Protein backbone atom coordinates (compact mmCIF):
# COMPACT_ATOMS: atom_id res chain seq x y z
CA UNK A 1 0.00 0.00 0.00
CA UNK A 2 1.38 3.38 -0.99
CA UNK A 3 0.13 6.48 0.84
CA UNK A 4 1.15 9.99 -0.15
CA UNK A 5 -0.08 12.94 1.92
CA UNK A 6 0.23 16.68 1.25
CA UNK A 7 3.53 16.37 -0.56
CA UNK A 8 5.19 19.64 -1.58
CA UNK A 9 8.48 20.18 -3.35
CA UNK A 10 10.03 23.30 -4.83
CA UNK A 11 13.11 23.52 -7.04
CA UNK A 12 14.28 27.13 -6.97
CA UNK A 13 11.23 29.12 -8.04
CA UNK A 14 9.46 26.11 -9.59
CA UNK A 15 6.83 24.38 -7.50
CA UNK A 16 7.01 20.76 -8.65
CA UNK A 17 4.53 19.35 -6.10
CA UNK A 18 1.76 21.34 -4.49
CA UNK A 19 0.05 19.34 -1.75
CA UNK A 20 -0.14 16.05 -3.65
CA UNK A 21 -2.08 13.26 -1.91
CA UNK A 22 -3.05 9.82 -3.20
CA UNK A 23 -3.14 6.12 -2.34
CA UNK A 24 -2.18 3.10 -4.45
CA UNK A 25 -3.79 -0.09 -3.20
CA UNK A 26 -2.78 -3.74 -3.45
CA UNK A 27 -4.25 -5.94 -6.12
CA UNK A 28 -4.64 -3.30 -8.81
CA UNK A 29 -2.41 -1.55 -11.32
CA UNK A 30 -2.60 2.15 -10.49
CA UNK A 31 -1.72 4.52 -13.31
CA UNK A 32 -0.02 7.78 -12.36
CA UNK A 33 -0.74 9.93 -15.37
CA UNK A 34 0.28 13.42 -16.31
CA UNK A 35 2.08 15.51 -18.87
CA UNK A 36 5.85 15.87 -18.86
CA UNK A 37 6.73 18.16 -15.95
CA UNK A 38 3.48 17.46 -14.09
CA UNK A 39 5.41 16.18 -11.06
CA UNK A 40 5.13 12.41 -11.56
CA UNK A 41 8.85 11.64 -11.43
CA UNK A 42 9.41 14.01 -8.52
CA UNK A 43 6.67 12.29 -6.51
CA UNK A 44 8.08 8.84 -7.27
CA UNK A 45 11.60 9.95 -6.34
CA UNK A 46 10.38 11.32 -3.02
CA UNK A 47 8.47 8.07 -2.45
CA UNK A 48 11.76 6.20 -2.98
CA UNK A 49 13.77 8.57 -0.74
CA UNK A 50 15.91 9.82 -3.62
CA UNK A 51 14.55 13.37 -3.29
CA UNK A 52 13.63 15.21 -0.11
CA UNK A 53 10.12 16.64 0.22
CA UNK A 54 9.69 20.16 1.55
CA UNK A 55 6.66 18.91 3.51
CA UNK A 56 4.23 16.02 3.61
CA UNK A 57 4.94 12.31 3.70
CA UNK A 58 5.18 9.39 1.30
CA UNK A 59 4.83 5.97 2.91
CA UNK A 60 5.03 2.38 1.73
CA UNK A 61 3.21 -0.06 4.00
CA UNK A 62 3.28 2.67 6.65
CA UNK A 63 7.02 3.38 6.50
CA UNK A 64 9.26 5.80 4.67
CA UNK A 65 11.40 4.01 2.06
CA UNK A 66 14.62 4.86 3.90
CA UNK A 67 13.23 3.25 7.06
CA UNK A 68 12.78 -0.13 5.37
CA UNK A 69 15.53 -2.65 6.07
CA UNK A 70 16.66 -4.45 2.88
CA UNK A 71 14.04 -2.55 0.85
CA UNK A 72 14.33 -4.62 -2.34
CA UNK A 73 12.38 -7.37 -0.53
CA UNK A 74 9.47 -4.94 -0.13
CA UNK A 75 9.68 -2.51 -3.03
CA UNK A 76 10.87 -2.92 -6.62
CA UNK A 77 11.42 0.23 -8.64
CA UNK A 78 12.17 1.10 -12.25
CA UNK A 79 13.15 4.74 -12.56
CA UNK A 80 15.94 5.31 -15.04
CA UNK A 81 17.03 2.92 -17.77
CA UNK A 82 20.55 4.39 -17.59
CA UNK A 83 21.07 3.67 -13.90
CA UNK A 84 23.23 0.56 -14.35
CA UNK A 85 27.01 0.94 -14.73
CA UNK A 86 27.75 0.52 -18.46
CA UNK A 87 30.94 -1.43 -17.79
CA UNK A 88 29.28 -4.09 -15.64
CA UNK A 89 27.49 -7.15 -17.01
CA UNK A 90 23.76 -7.56 -16.49
CA UNK A 91 24.42 -10.55 -14.22
CA UNK A 92 26.88 -8.68 -12.05
CA UNK A 93 24.64 -5.59 -11.89
CA UNK A 94 21.87 -7.73 -10.43
CA UNK A 95 24.28 -9.75 -8.27
CA UNK A 96 25.49 -6.52 -6.61
CA UNK A 97 21.91 -5.49 -5.84
CA UNK A 98 21.10 -8.98 -4.56
CA UNK A 99 24.15 -9.04 -2.30
CA UNK A 100 23.33 -5.67 -0.73
CA UNK A 101 19.84 -6.89 0.28
CA UNK A 102 20.78 -10.51 1.10
CA UNK A 103 18.76 -11.91 -1.79
CA UNK A 104 19.64 -15.43 -2.90
CA UNK A 105 21.84 -15.36 -6.00
CA UNK A 106 19.57 -17.86 -7.74
CA UNK A 107 17.04 -15.03 -8.05
CA UNK A 108 19.44 -13.26 -10.42
CA UNK A 109 19.19 -16.09 -12.92
CA UNK A 110 15.44 -16.33 -12.38
CA UNK A 111 14.69 -12.66 -13.11
CA UNK A 112 17.10 -12.59 -16.05
CA UNK A 113 15.11 -15.45 -17.60
CA UNK A 114 11.81 -13.84 -16.62
CA UNK A 115 12.74 -10.61 -18.41
CA UNK A 116 14.18 -12.30 -21.51
CA UNK A 117 17.79 -11.33 -20.77
CA UNK A 118 19.25 -14.79 -20.06
CA UNK A 119 21.16 -14.84 -23.36
CA UNK A 120 22.85 -11.50 -22.69
CA UNK A 121 23.38 -11.99 -18.95
CA UNK A 122 27.15 -11.84 -19.26
CA UNK A 123 27.31 -8.93 -21.71
CA UNK A 124 28.14 -5.42 -20.54
CA UNK A 125 25.18 -3.09 -20.03
CA UNK A 126 26.85 -0.37 -22.11
CA UNK A 127 26.11 -2.40 -25.23
CA UNK A 128 22.40 -2.80 -24.42
CA UNK A 129 19.62 -1.09 -26.37
CA UNK A 130 17.19 1.16 -24.47
CA UNK A 131 14.64 -1.65 -24.48
CA UNK A 132 17.12 -4.14 -23.03
CA UNK A 133 18.06 -1.66 -20.32
CA UNK A 134 14.36 -1.22 -19.49
CA UNK A 135 14.09 -4.99 -19.15
CA UNK A 136 17.18 -4.98 -16.90
CA UNK A 137 15.53 -2.29 -14.77
CA UNK A 138 12.45 -4.46 -14.42
CA UNK A 139 14.63 -7.47 -13.59
CA UNK A 140 16.20 -5.41 -10.78
CA UNK A 141 12.74 -4.42 -9.55
CA UNK A 142 11.58 -8.05 -9.44
CA UNK A 143 14.79 -9.30 -7.79
CA UNK A 144 13.50 -9.28 -4.22
CA UNK A 145 10.03 -10.60 -5.15
CA UNK A 146 8.55 -7.39 -3.69
CA UNK A 147 4.95 -6.70 -2.71
CA UNK A 148 5.10 -3.14 -4.10
CA UNK A 149 6.27 -2.10 -7.56
CA UNK A 150 6.93 1.50 -8.60
CA UNK A 151 7.64 2.10 -12.28
CA UNK A 152 8.39 5.42 -13.99
CA UNK A 153 7.55 5.29 -17.71
CA UNK A 154 8.54 1.60 -17.98
CA UNK A 155 7.52 1.14 -21.63
CA UNK A 156 9.87 3.83 -22.99
CA UNK A 157 12.16 2.19 -25.53
CA UNK A 158 10.34 -1.14 -25.56
CA UNK A 159 9.18 -2.67 -28.83
CA UNK A 160 5.62 -3.91 -29.35
CA UNK A 161 6.37 -7.35 -27.96
CA UNK A 162 8.12 -5.81 -24.96
CA UNK A 163 5.17 -3.51 -24.26
CA UNK A 164 2.74 -6.41 -24.41
CA UNK A 165 5.03 -8.43 -22.16
CA UNK A 166 5.32 -5.68 -19.54
CA UNK A 167 1.56 -5.13 -19.63
CA UNK A 168 0.79 -8.79 -18.98
CA UNK A 169 3.55 -9.01 -16.36
CA UNK A 170 2.26 -6.03 -14.38
CA UNK A 171 -1.33 -7.26 -14.53
CA UNK A 172 -0.23 -10.70 -13.35
CA UNK A 173 1.76 -9.16 -10.48
CA UNK A 174 -1.24 -7.09 -9.40
CA UNK A 175 -3.48 -10.16 -9.62
CA UNK A 176 -1.16 -11.80 -7.07
CA UNK A 177 -2.12 -9.02 -4.64
CA UNK A 178 0.85 -6.71 -5.16
CA UNK A 179 0.64 -2.93 -5.29
CA UNK A 180 1.68 -1.66 -8.73
CA UNK A 181 2.10 2.09 -9.33
CA UNK A 182 2.94 2.98 -12.90
CA UNK A 183 3.61 6.47 -14.25
CA UNK A 184 3.02 7.25 -17.89
CA UNK A 185 2.20 10.05 -20.28
CA UNK A 186 0.93 7.58 -22.92
CA UNK A 187 -2.86 7.37 -22.46
CA UNK A 188 -3.51 4.66 -25.04
CA UNK A 189 -1.00 2.34 -23.41
CA UNK A 190 -2.13 3.18 -19.90
CA UNK A 191 -5.75 2.42 -20.85
CA UNK A 192 -4.76 -1.17 -21.65
CA UNK A 193 -2.68 -1.68 -18.51
CA UNK A 194 -4.10 0.12 -15.49
CA UNK A 195 -7.20 -0.52 -13.36
CA UNK A 196 -7.21 2.75 -11.49
CA UNK A 197 -5.92 6.16 -12.60
CA UNK A 198 -4.51 9.14 -10.78
CA UNK A 199 -4.27 12.23 -12.96
CA UNK A 200 -1.73 14.80 -11.87
CA UNK A 201 -1.11 18.31 -13.18
CA UNK A 202 0.94 21.20 -11.85
CA UNK A 203 1.98 19.11 -8.88
CA UNK A 204 -1.58 18.38 -7.67
CA UNK A 205 -3.97 15.46 -7.99
CA UNK A 206 -6.61 16.54 -10.52
CA UNK A 207 -8.72 13.41 -10.55
CA UNK A 208 -8.78 9.74 -9.70
CA UNK A 209 -11.11 7.06 -10.89
CA UNK A 210 -11.45 3.42 -11.79
CA UNK A 211 -10.91 2.82 -15.51
CA UNK A 212 -13.98 0.57 -15.55
CA UNK A 213 -16.12 3.45 -14.25
CA UNK A 214 -15.08 5.85 -17.01
CA UNK A 215 -18.02 6.93 -19.21
CA UNK A 216 -15.67 7.57 -22.14
CA UNK A 217 -12.09 6.82 -23.13
CA UNK A 218 -9.24 7.38 -20.69
CA UNK A 219 -7.66 9.77 -23.20
CA UNK A 220 -10.81 11.92 -23.34
CA UNK A 221 -11.08 11.91 -19.56
CA UNK A 222 -7.42 12.84 -19.21
CA UNK A 223 -7.65 15.70 -21.71
CA UNK A 224 -10.76 17.02 -20.05
CA UNK A 225 -9.16 17.00 -16.63
CA UNK A 226 -5.87 18.54 -17.69
CA UNK A 227 -7.70 21.02 -19.93
CA UNK A 228 -9.48 22.29 -16.84
CA UNK A 229 -6.11 23.06 -15.32
CA UNK A 230 -4.93 24.88 -18.45
CA UNK A 231 -8.10 26.95 -18.41
Amino acid at each position, binding site marked *: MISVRDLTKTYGSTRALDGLSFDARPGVVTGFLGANGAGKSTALRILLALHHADSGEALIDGRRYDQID*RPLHTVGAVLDAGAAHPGRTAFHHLACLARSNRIDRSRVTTVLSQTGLADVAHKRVGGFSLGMRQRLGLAAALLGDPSVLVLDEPVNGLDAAGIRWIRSTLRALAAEGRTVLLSSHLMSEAALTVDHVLIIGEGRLLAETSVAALPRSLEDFYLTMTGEVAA
Partner: protein
Amino acid sequence: MSTDVMAAEWLKLRTVRSTSAFLVAAAAATLLGMTLLFLLIQAFDAATTAEQANFETADPTVVIMPFVMFFIGAIGALSITGSPDPGLLAVPHRRLLLASKAAVSGAIGLLAGGAFALLSFIGARLLLGDRPPPLNPWPEWTDALPTIGCTALVVAVTSVVGVGLGAVLRSTAATLLTLGGLILVAPTLAHFLPTVWHLRLATVLLPNLTPQITGADHPYLLSRPGAVVVLAGYMIVALVAGALALGRRDVS
Protein backbone atom coordinates in the same frame (compact mmCIF):
# COMPACT_ATOMS: atom_id res chain seq x y z
CA MET B 1 22.91 -5.14 7.03
CA SER B 2 26.27 -3.35 6.96
CA THR B 3 28.26 -6.50 6.10
CA ASP B 4 25.88 -7.18 3.19
CA VAL B 5 26.32 -3.63 1.94
CA MET B 6 30.10 -3.84 2.23
CA ALA B 7 30.10 -7.19 0.42
CA ALA B 8 28.02 -5.61 -2.35
CA GLU B 9 30.39 -2.64 -2.59
CA TRP B 10 33.33 -5.04 -2.86
CA LEU B 11 31.51 -6.93 -5.61
CA LYS B 12 30.78 -3.65 -7.41
CA LEU B 13 34.47 -2.71 -7.44
CA ARG B 14 35.50 -6.20 -8.51
CA THR B 15 33.12 -6.25 -11.48
CA VAL B 16 34.16 -3.07 -13.29
CA ARG B 17 37.24 -2.76 -15.48
CA SER B 18 38.29 0.61 -14.06
CA THR B 19 39.41 -1.04 -10.81
CA SER B 20 41.87 -3.38 -12.52
CA ALA B 21 42.95 -0.57 -14.88
CA PHE B 22 43.91 1.64 -11.92
CA LEU B 23 45.74 -1.26 -10.25
CA VAL B 24 47.68 -1.87 -13.47
CA ALA B 25 48.50 1.85 -13.64
CA ALA B 26 49.81 1.70 -10.04
CA ALA B 27 51.94 -1.32 -10.98
CA ALA B 28 53.28 0.56 -14.01
CA ALA B 29 54.19 3.52 -11.77
CA THR B 30 56.04 1.13 -9.46
CA LEU B 31 57.93 -0.37 -12.43
CA LEU B 32 58.82 3.09 -13.69
CA GLY B 33 60.10 4.00 -10.24
CA MET B 34 62.29 0.90 -10.23
CA THR B 35 63.69 1.89 -13.63
CA LEU B 36 64.58 5.35 -12.32
CA LEU B 37 66.22 3.75 -9.29
CA PHE B 38 68.26 1.49 -11.56
CA LEU B 39 69.48 4.53 -13.52
CA LEU B 40 70.31 6.35 -10.28
CA ILE B 41 72.36 3.37 -9.05
CA GLN B 42 74.26 3.26 -12.36
CA ALA B 43 75.11 6.95 -11.94
CA PHE B 44 76.14 6.28 -8.33
CA ASP B 45 78.48 3.48 -9.36
CA ALA B 46 80.08 5.70 -12.03
CA ALA B 47 80.64 8.59 -9.59
CA THR B 48 83.75 9.32 -7.52
CA THR B 49 83.72 8.65 -3.77
CA ALA B 50 83.34 12.39 -3.06
CA GLU B 51 80.41 12.64 -5.45
CA GLN B 52 78.78 9.51 -3.99
CA ALA B 53 78.63 11.19 -0.58
CA ASN B 54 76.36 13.85 -2.07
CA PHE B 55 73.81 11.44 -3.59
CA GLU B 56 70.31 11.71 -2.21
CA THR B 57 68.66 8.73 -0.61
CA ALA B 58 67.21 6.24 -3.10
CA ASP B 59 63.94 5.64 -1.27
CA PRO B 60 61.66 4.66 -4.20
CA THR B 61 58.50 5.36 -2.21
CA VAL B 62 59.18 9.11 -2.45
CA VAL B 63 58.85 9.01 -6.25
CA ILE B 64 56.44 6.10 -6.68
CA MET B 65 53.92 6.36 -3.88
CA PRO B 66 52.23 9.67 -4.86
CA PHE B 67 51.28 8.03 -8.17
CA VAL B 68 50.16 4.85 -6.41
CA MET B 69 48.14 7.01 -4.00
CA PHE B 70 46.45 8.76 -6.90
CA PHE B 71 45.58 5.57 -8.79
CA ILE B 72 44.30 3.72 -5.70
CA GLY B 73 42.47 6.84 -4.51
CA ALA B 74 40.80 6.99 -7.92
CA ILE B 75 39.28 3.55 -7.25
CA GLY B 76 37.64 5.02 -4.14
CA ALA B 77 36.45 8.06 -6.09
CA LEU B 78 34.90 5.95 -8.83
CA SER B 79 33.07 3.81 -6.29
CA ILE B 80 30.73 6.77 -5.88
CA THR B 81 31.00 8.77 -9.11
CA GLY B 82 31.45 5.90 -11.58
CA SER B 83 27.77 5.03 -11.82
CA PRO B 84 24.77 7.33 -12.39
CA ASP B 85 23.08 5.60 -9.44
CA PRO B 86 25.33 5.35 -6.36
CA GLY B 87 23.08 2.54 -5.04
CA LEU B 88 20.50 4.42 -2.99
CA LEU B 89 17.54 2.36 -4.21
CA ALA B 90 19.11 -0.77 -2.77
CA VAL B 91 20.58 1.00 0.27
CA PRO B 92 18.55 4.13 1.04
CA HIS B 93 20.36 4.73 4.34
CA ARG B 94 22.83 7.24 2.90
CA ARG B 95 25.37 7.31 5.72
CA LEU B 96 25.52 3.52 5.75
CA LEU B 97 26.09 3.49 1.99
CA LEU B 98 28.86 6.10 2.20
CA ALA B 99 30.50 4.37 5.20
CA SER B 100 30.45 1.03 3.35
CA LYS B 101 32.04 2.55 0.25
CA ALA B 102 34.67 4.24 2.43
CA ALA B 103 35.39 1.04 4.39
CA VAL B 104 35.80 -1.09 1.25
CA SER B 105 37.87 1.55 -0.56
CA GLY B 106 39.99 2.07 2.54
CA ALA B 107 40.62 -1.67 2.84
CA ILE B 108 41.64 -1.84 -0.82
CA GLY B 109 43.92 1.15 -0.22
CA LEU B 110 45.50 -0.50 2.80
CA LEU B 111 46.16 -3.79 1.00
CA ALA B 112 47.21 -2.30 -2.34
CA GLY B 113 49.26 0.47 -0.73
CA GLY B 114 51.04 -2.07 1.45
CA ALA B 115 51.60 -4.40 -1.49
CA PHE B 116 53.06 -1.71 -3.76
CA ALA B 117 55.22 -0.31 -0.94
CA LEU B 118 56.50 -3.85 -0.23
CA LEU B 119 57.20 -4.44 -3.93
CA SER B 120 59.08 -1.13 -4.11
CA PHE B 121 61.10 -2.09 -1.04
CA ILE B 122 61.97 -5.56 -2.36
CA GLY B 123 62.94 -4.12 -5.75
CA ALA B 124 65.04 -1.42 -4.12
CA ARG B 125 66.79 -3.92 -1.83
CA LEU B 126 67.65 -6.13 -4.80
CA LEU B 127 68.93 -3.20 -6.85
CA LEU B 128 70.81 -1.45 -4.01
CA GLY B 129 72.55 -4.60 -2.73
CA ASP B 130 75.11 -3.62 -0.07
CA ARG B 131 75.60 -0.05 -1.24
CA PRO B 132 75.95 2.30 1.76
CA PRO B 133 73.81 5.16 3.09
CA PRO B 134 72.85 7.86 2.25
CA LEU B 135 72.01 6.22 -1.13
CA ASN B 136 70.67 3.15 0.63
CA PRO B 137 67.85 4.31 2.91
CA TRP B 138 67.47 0.91 4.58
CA PRO B 139 70.86 -0.68 5.48
CA GLU B 140 68.86 -3.36 7.36
CA TRP B 141 65.61 -4.73 5.85
CA THR B 142 63.81 -4.15 9.16
CA ASP B 143 64.44 -0.40 8.71
CA ALA B 144 61.85 -0.37 5.91
CA LEU B 145 58.98 -1.91 7.86
CA PRO B 146 57.66 1.36 9.41
CA THR B 147 57.73 3.02 5.99
CA ILE B 148 55.76 0.15 4.39
CA GLY B 149 53.17 0.16 7.18
CA CYS B 150 52.71 3.94 7.17
CA THR B 151 52.58 4.06 3.38
CA ALA B 152 49.74 1.51 3.42
CA LEU B 153 47.92 3.66 6.00
CA VAL B 154 48.35 6.86 3.99
CA VAL B 155 47.12 5.17 0.78
CA ALA B 156 44.08 3.84 2.69
CA VAL B 157 43.26 7.37 3.89
CA THR B 158 43.74 8.66 0.33
CA SER B 159 41.12 6.15 -0.87
CA VAL B 160 38.68 7.38 1.77
CA VAL B 161 39.41 10.97 0.72
CA GLY B 162 38.59 9.87 -2.86
CA VAL B 163 35.19 8.59 -1.69
CA GLY B 164 34.47 11.79 0.25
CA LEU B 165 35.52 14.01 -2.65
CA GLY B 166 33.35 11.96 -5.01
CA ALA B 167 30.33 12.39 -2.73
CA VAL B 168 30.86 16.15 -2.60
CA LEU B 169 31.81 16.81 -6.23
CA ARG B 170 29.62 14.09 -7.89
CA SER B 171 31.59 14.27 -11.14
CA THR B 172 34.33 11.74 -11.93
CA ALA B 173 36.39 14.31 -13.84
CA ALA B 174 36.19 16.95 -11.11
CA THR B 175 36.98 14.39 -8.40
CA LEU B 176 40.03 12.96 -10.17
CA LEU B 177 41.25 16.46 -10.99
CA THR B 178 40.97 17.51 -7.35
CA LEU B 179 42.59 14.30 -6.10
CA GLY B 180 45.44 14.69 -8.62
CA GLY B 181 45.86 18.33 -7.60
CA LEU B 182 46.07 17.37 -3.93
CA ILE B 183 48.52 14.50 -4.35
CA LEU B 184 50.57 15.21 -7.47
CA VAL B 185 50.36 18.94 -8.26
CA ALA B 186 50.33 20.64 -4.85
CA PRO B 187 53.67 19.13 -3.71
CA THR B 188 55.30 20.46 -6.89
CA LEU B 189 53.68 23.88 -6.67
CA ALA B 190 54.74 24.15 -3.04
CA HIS B 191 58.36 24.33 -4.22
CA PHE B 192 57.65 27.70 -5.86
CA LEU B 193 56.63 29.27 -2.53
CA PRO B 194 59.06 31.01 -0.17
CA THR B 195 60.84 28.39 1.97
CA VAL B 196 58.81 29.01 5.12
CA TRP B 197 55.49 28.72 3.27
CA HIS B 198 56.76 25.81 1.21
CA LEU B 199 57.52 23.90 4.40
CA ARG B 200 54.20 24.82 6.03
CA LEU B 201 52.21 23.65 3.01
CA ALA B 202 54.33 20.60 2.20
CA THR B 203 54.14 19.46 5.82
CA VAL B 204 50.38 18.87 5.67
CA LEU B 205 50.21 17.29 2.20
CA LEU B 206 49.24 13.63 2.17
CA PRO B 207 52.35 12.26 0.41
CA ASN B 208 54.62 13.94 2.96
CA LEU B 209 52.91 12.54 6.03
CA THR B 210 54.58 9.10 5.76
CA PRO B 211 58.11 10.21 6.76
CA GLN B 212 56.67 12.40 9.52
CA ILE B 213 54.75 9.46 10.99
CA THR B 214 57.65 7.02 10.74
CA GLY B 215 60.11 9.54 12.17
CA ALA B 216 62.50 9.15 9.21
CA ASP B 217 64.82 12.00 8.22
CA HIS B 218 62.67 14.77 6.71
CA PRO B 219 62.56 18.56 6.57
CA TYR B 220 58.88 18.91 7.60
CA LEU B 221 57.41 20.50 10.71
CA LEU B 222 55.11 18.00 12.42
CA SER B 223 55.84 15.68 15.32
CA ARG B 224 54.84 12.03 14.87
CA PRO B 225 51.58 12.45 16.84
CA GLY B 226 50.92 15.68 14.95
CA ALA B 227 51.29 13.90 11.61
CA VAL B 228 48.90 11.14 12.77
CA VAL B 229 46.35 13.80 13.77
CA VAL B 230 46.61 15.48 10.34
CA LEU B 231 46.19 12.10 8.60
CA ALA B 232 43.11 11.35 10.72
CA GLY B 233 41.85 14.86 9.97
CA TYR B 234 41.91 14.17 6.21
CA MET B 235 39.73 11.10 6.75
CA ILE B 236 37.30 12.78 9.13
CA VAL B 237 36.86 15.89 6.97
CA ALA B 238 36.33 13.75 3.84
CA LEU B 239 33.74 11.53 5.51
CA VAL B 240 31.84 14.36 7.23
CA ALA B 241 31.77 16.49 4.06
CA GLY B 242 30.72 13.46 1.99
CA ALA B 243 27.97 12.52 4.45
CA LEU B 244 26.61 16.06 4.55
CA ALA B 245 26.65 16.38 0.75
CA LEU B 246 25.10 12.98 0.06
CA GLY B 247 22.57 13.36 2.88
CA ARG B 248 21.15 16.65 1.62
CA ARG B 249 21.24 15.95 -2.09
CA ASP B 250 18.34 15.03 -4.35
CA VAL B 251 19.62 12.09 -6.39
CA SER B 252 18.50 11.49 -9.97
